């Protein structure tokens, strides 16, 4: 029950943040990526706010030794900068540039009820599932099987 409450609260805050920051407008996101056009720096401010608060929050929380409602912190253990990381990031970046949606804003935008957004998310889920099947073991970048999908 506590896990569900944690998911609901953090999901809601995350979604509100994305909305207020206009990350749910593909035009704004593509405006940031359009360095040769009318460049829109909005995403830079989102990153600055997000990384700063997360950086400080993490240090404060890690100093407590363990999370409130779980036995231990489950952090990614992979450190290799390998072909999968580079190819995956490049493929993601191409899709991101084409549509102006990354996974979070796309899921949030489902609320608009626009069929086109549902089609994008459906295609994304197909891509994720296909890649998981292809690799046969999901994302192997995490510490244990139970947390292998956390990053």
């Amino acid at each position: 029950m506590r896990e569900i409450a944690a998911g609901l609260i953090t999901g809601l805050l995350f979604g509100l943040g994305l909305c207020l920051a206009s990350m749910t407008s593909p035009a704004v996101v593509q405006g940031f990526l359009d360095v040769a056009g009318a460049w829109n720096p909005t995403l830079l401010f989102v990153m600055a706010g997000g990384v700063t608060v997360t950086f400080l929050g993490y240090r404060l929380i890690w100093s407590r030794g363990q999370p409130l409602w779980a036995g231990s912190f489950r952090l990614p253990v992979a450190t290799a900068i390998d072909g999968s990381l580079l190819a995956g990031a490049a493929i993601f970046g191409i899709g991101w540039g084409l549509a102006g949606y990354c996974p979070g804003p796309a899921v949030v935008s489902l609320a608009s009820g626009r069929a086109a957004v549902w089609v994008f998310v459906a295609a994304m889920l197909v891509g994720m599932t296909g890649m998981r099947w292809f690799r046969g073991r999901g994302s192997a970048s995490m510490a244990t099987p139970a947390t292998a999908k956390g990053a």
Partner: protein
Amino acid sequence: MHPYILALTGGGLIGLSSALLMMFSGRIAGISGIVGGLLPPNAADDRAWRVAFIVGLIAAPLLLAVFTGDSHVGPPTVGLATLIVAGLLVGIGTTLGGGCTSGHGICGIARISPRSVVATVVFVLAGMLTVFVTRHVL
């Protein structure tokens, strides 16, 4: 409010969410990972909080619409065919690369993970190159 102030505030809320998820559950707030854990094969056995997180995400613009009259959700900028191709690429890429804008871009950089810093630089550059080609070359 100025869009940049709103963006900084929105980013701060995203950071607060990431920090709280670490505080409550000890987890990284990576959207592609949270969603991916619900998918076959080998779906995670902790599906309830993942579904709850997604419900929270989708509830956000609905609540904004009710209380402020503006959901802050903009329309897609491209056609269906492009959205399908882009969706497939986003799904494949985030799964292969182990994260997206949130897991690598926010949480990973906040952890000072070299892997996440490199991934973020690569997907931002790939996105910029893609927009350059689609808007200024084609």
